[in-house]
């Protein structure tokens, strides 16, 4: 579910970085003003815990399927939404840097998908809403399950939108949605059960941990306004996309209601992309990386390639010279590497 750099465009990556950066800055301010300095080491070590716990697979008896915790909601439950969001950010940053799990440019997207939806939407509005009357075994199950599943669905939908916005894959929207959402429903149910088990255990053994987080002043006064502001921004983005789709597709309504699925729609997809591209070049809503249809791309490449004809409108000549040149460059790069390594190891030997 981690987005990779290769799947996003700079515009989408940058926009999500900006959104996430804003949320993180606000959360840090919140954490620093509200809490004791004790929270920082707790967040650090808890981040490491979630990181390790993500590698533990839990099996669902009788189904043979297994899953692991995502961590966003669990962190929000144990640390509160702001600290939870920051901790999630740190985990994802380390995964991006040290494990190439989701890239640096895509980090904004990933933090948003896995941190924002769980900590600032699922936790305050779903989990807390259900658990408000007090902790009981049943309510823990209900609240965790609903919050995890819906949080994950939102995150998965985020992945779909970000990828489509970036225009790197050619998957049509509906196919992508149909691929992503059900998979994440299954994952969400497993995770929901695991979170329930963990929260119930902690609640039984050390209730003060959960109560402190849930009823303490830090979470008690979640400023809903701020969360809502975030929501509005999100809604605007989403709205932008949706209206974009809708206007691009003559059967916009039908499309958005998921009435059609399968082949017919798949075929329509090229049309969507094309019209989108036209609209885009007309309105310049986003810089021209996003959602490009082959044609418009060709145009920009033509400009870029110094008047050369580029790929899609292929003439045999250009594809050959592209191939030859590309291969040559590849060989040259490899050669450079080899020579440097040779020279270096020789020098090392001489010095030694």
């Amino acid at each position: 579910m981690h987005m990779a750099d290769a799947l996003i465009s700079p515009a989408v990556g940058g926009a999500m970085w900006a959104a996430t950066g804003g949320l993180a800055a606000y959360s840090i301010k919140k954490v620093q003003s509200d809490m004791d300095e004790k929270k920082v080491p707790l967040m650090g070590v808890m981040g490491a815990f979630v990181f390790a716990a993500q590698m533990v697979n839990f099996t669902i008896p009788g189904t043979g399927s297994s899953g692991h915790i995502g961590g966003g909601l669990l962190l929000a439950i144990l640390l509160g939404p702001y600290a939870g969001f920051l901790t999630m950010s740190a985990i994802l940053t380390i995964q991006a840097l040290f494990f190439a799990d989701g890239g640096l440019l895509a980090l904004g997207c990933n933090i948003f998908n896995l941190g924002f939806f769980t900590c600032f939407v699922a936790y305050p509005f779903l989990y807390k809403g259900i658990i408000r009357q007090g902790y009981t075994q049943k309510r823990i199950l209900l609240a965790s399950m609903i919050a995890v599943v819906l949080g994950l669905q939102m995150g998965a939908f985020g992945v779909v939108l970000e990828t489509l916005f970036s225009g790197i894959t050619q998957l049509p929207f509906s196919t992508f949605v149909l691929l992503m959402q059900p998979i994440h429903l299954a994952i969400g149910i497993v995770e929901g059960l695991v979170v329930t088990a963990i929260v119930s255990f902690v609640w039984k053994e050390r209730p003060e941990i959960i109560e402190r987080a849930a009823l303490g002043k830090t979470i008690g006064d979640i400023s809903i306004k701020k969360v809502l502001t975030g929501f509005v921004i999100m809604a605007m983005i989403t709205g932008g996309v949706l209206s974009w789709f809708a206007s691009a597709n003559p059967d916009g309504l039908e499309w958005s209601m998921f009435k059609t699925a399968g082949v017919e729609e798949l075929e329509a997809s090229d049309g969507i992309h094309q019209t989108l591209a036209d609209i885009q070049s007309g309105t310049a809503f986003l810089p021209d990386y996003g959602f490009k249809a082959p044609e418009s791309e060709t145009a920009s490449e033509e400009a870029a390639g110094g008047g050369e004809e580029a790929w899609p409108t292929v003439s045999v000549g250009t594809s050959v010279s592209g191939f030859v040149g590309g291969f040559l460059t590849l060989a040259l790069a490899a050669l450079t590497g080899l020579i440097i390594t040779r020279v270096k190891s020789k020098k090392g030997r001489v010095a030694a």
Partner: protein
Amino acid sequence: MSGMINSLYNLRLLDDLAKKGTSIHRVHPLIKLLTTVVYLTVVVSFGRYQISGLMPFLFYPVLIFALGEVPVLPILKRIIIVEPLIIGIGILNPIFDHQTFMFGGFTVSMGWVTFLSIMIKCALTVTVALLLVATTGMDGLAAAMRMLKIPKAFVLQLVLTYRYIAVLLEEAARTLRAYSLRAPGQRGIHRSAWGTLAGQLLLRTFDRAERVYQGMCLKGFTGEYYTGKSNRIRIIDLFFLAGWISFFVIARIYNIPMLLGSLLTGVLN
């Protein structure tokens, strides 16, 4: 479980690599971070039908590999671990792209071009990000973040998370080992043990966090995080930055391999 051991190995490896002292390691962390970000942005900005234009971007990782004395294999392994996800999303492109082109007498879906393009981009971006870490290390990155005015609290928390990942991976692995020894032939953890197993680990983590906090307090921690002075940016660092950025920009604007290729084929004709 093997995932944990791999992660630990990976952390250790990158950490070892970052302790070397080559010319690349000596480039200021902030400069390397900025160069990497520009690189990633430029690479990712290429359209989905471009392949040849991406080729010049091999030079950056190749030079870092060679000058920074980073072994190629472990990094390659990492790419191979990441690629399947990309393949999963990209493999459908050939199905949905109805345009075709002729190549050597065959009709090929343009989708294959986009697929290949994604794969190359993925390899490049993953490699360069890992190279950044392998030549800079967590402490270098933390210093760079501080220079970018990222709040101390977040940097400290990040450093702590990084530090305790190794400790907790080992702790989790021990717990799992104890579990699997008594539950042979089980792939994951059975439902009945979920809460206790993860919960125990969690409670121990809370206690550890408490002790770590005490340890910090005993060393005079009051919520402020003081780092040492970070190294100054040298002139040569600026040259590094400026040089690479100009290269990236030029290679983005002009399709160098294409020019080279047409020159060559033109000459041959």
